[in-house]
């Protein structure tokens, strides 16, 4: 009788063992030597596109990195040269890529009138062999900024064929995240050709840009559509502490910099407030920061235990976070791959495996799979 308290403990230990067995994975390196890998797009069972921050778009075919980069990528804004942020960022496929071969790229682009300024830009183009053709700009964040940080730059297609693009606060310009006359700290929603959907929340509103979908963001670098096809998960870098995981809803204000759980890098407060009516709360936040870089929701069948789990790559200290969700609430967090250093991206592959990109000048694409 007196040992009954041990039963739950035994159950937990047993359950963990089962989870571990089902979640065991192997790793293989698909590509290495990538200069600041950022975006990954899985084209087919045997083809993957990868961006390199330095401005190259690479192709991995049948597990081999094509030595010839794709031509036709516009020049990207690189500052500093060691590229801690910015450069060529995300790559996304058009939902009907198999018919039209259209891809979308986000990157920092030097301002044509004043090269000391730059702006986060999204283009689309058609992939023809090793060439990107019919390139057209479909979005440019306004106004251009001086800093080369906090671009956001994540692209996500929704079920209705429209796309969301994240735009960061540019570090120095955080106050503008609360006003709707600019793209600083915003998520915008566009049609696939760059036109603005009529049902965007601020269409027709005075002093508001009609492409804005949500605002009050800091540096949102991860976004994924839930397996229900409706819920949009997004994460953003906080300052010193206060990285956030949010569920993004139309027209909502996510609070930056009026509320945050982080401190400024100088150690000063940014705000003494962490909540306020009308400002959305994260569903999870991290103090200290983990520097979340990308987000994927597991969709495959290879790891049944991972179904619907959120995977977040983190750059500080560098690992992969598996978040278990129940009713859009985070109920568990497992830290994986902490031996690989800074991780930049994670995506689902067609066979149920996960692809992870490591950060840095010798970046790798690593596949997590089970026999």
């Amino acid at each position: 009788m007196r040992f009954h308290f041990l039963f739950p403990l035994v159950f937990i230990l047993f359950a963990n063992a089962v989870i571990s067995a089902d979640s065991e994975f192997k790793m293989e390196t698909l590509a290495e030597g990538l200069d600041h890998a950022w975006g990954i797009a899985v084209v087919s069972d045997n083809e993957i596109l990868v961006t390199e921050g330095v401005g190259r778009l690479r192709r991995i075919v049948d597990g081999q990195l094509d030595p010839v980069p794709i031509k036709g990528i516009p020049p990207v804004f690189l500052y500093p040269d060691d590229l801690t942020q910015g450069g060529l960022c995300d790559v996304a496929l058009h939902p009907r890529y198999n018919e039209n071969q259209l891809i979308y790229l986000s990157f920092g682009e030097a301002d044509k009138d004043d090269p000391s300024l730059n702006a986060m830009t999204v283009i689309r183009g058609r992939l023809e062999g090793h060439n990107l053709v019919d390139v057209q700009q479909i979005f440019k964040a306004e106004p251009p900024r001086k800093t080369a940080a906090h671009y956001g730059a994540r692209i996500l297609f929704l079920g209705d064929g429209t796309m969301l693009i994240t735009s960061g606060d540019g570090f120095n310009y955080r106050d503008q995240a609360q006003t709707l006359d600019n793209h600083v700290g915003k998520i915008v929603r566009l049609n696939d050709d760059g036109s603005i959907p009529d049902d965007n929340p601020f269409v027709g509103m005075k002093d508001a840009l009609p492409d804005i979908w949500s605002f009050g963001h800091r540096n949102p670098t991860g976004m994924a559509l839930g397996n229900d096809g409706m819920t949009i998960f997004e994460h953003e870098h906080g300052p010193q502490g206060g990285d956030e995981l949010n569920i993004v809803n139309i027209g909502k204000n996510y609070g930056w910099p009026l509320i945050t759980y982080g401190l400024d890098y100088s150690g000063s407060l940014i705000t003494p407030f962490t909540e306020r009516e009308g400002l959305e709360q994260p569903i999870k936040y991290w103090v200290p920061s983990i520097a979340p870089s990308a987000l994927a929701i597991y969709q495959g069948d290879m790891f049944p235990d991972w179904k619907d789990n959120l995977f977040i790559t983190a750059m500080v200290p560098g690992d992969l976070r598996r978040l278990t969700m129940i009713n859009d609430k985070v109920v568990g967090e497992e830290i994986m791959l902490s031996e690989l250093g800074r991780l930049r991206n994670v995506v689902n592959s067609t066979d149920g495996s996960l692809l992870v990109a490591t950060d840095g000048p010798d970046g790798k694409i690593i596949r997590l799979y089970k026999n």
Partner: protein
Amino acid sequence: MLKKFTIFVAIVILVMTLFIVQTTSSYMLYLYQMGMPVDLKAFFLAVWTDLIGMNFHGLLPPIALVIFVVLGVAFLVAHLILKRISVEKKYFYAFAGASGMFTLVTLFPALTYDLEMYRGALTLLGKGYLTATGALGGYIFGLNLQRQS
């Protein structure tokens, strides 16, 4: 010598406090303008939090140490120059203190790829204020030296 050092430390504390009050004011004023419930109590609590935070919780070196080094170098250079030229000490140390703080708030972003780590120095007005705190510190330091001599 000990008296000079004590005065110098007191001036570092004064300049640091003015620096931090301005940092706190810059974001609290913004929050107030945006309709957040900022009152005097919240303001002074934030100043106190920043006094601790900017010295113990930042990713940057403690602000007291930064100002100690900046003013220390500025006043040392002023001391060496004053051996060769004849200018009223209070004005020359004020110039040296202003130069030191101006260098800090203008050159620091150059080291961080234009990222403004000290929020109070984001605007020209802020840079001007922080430069003036260096001038004030230098003026008081020079004045004390004049009185001692």
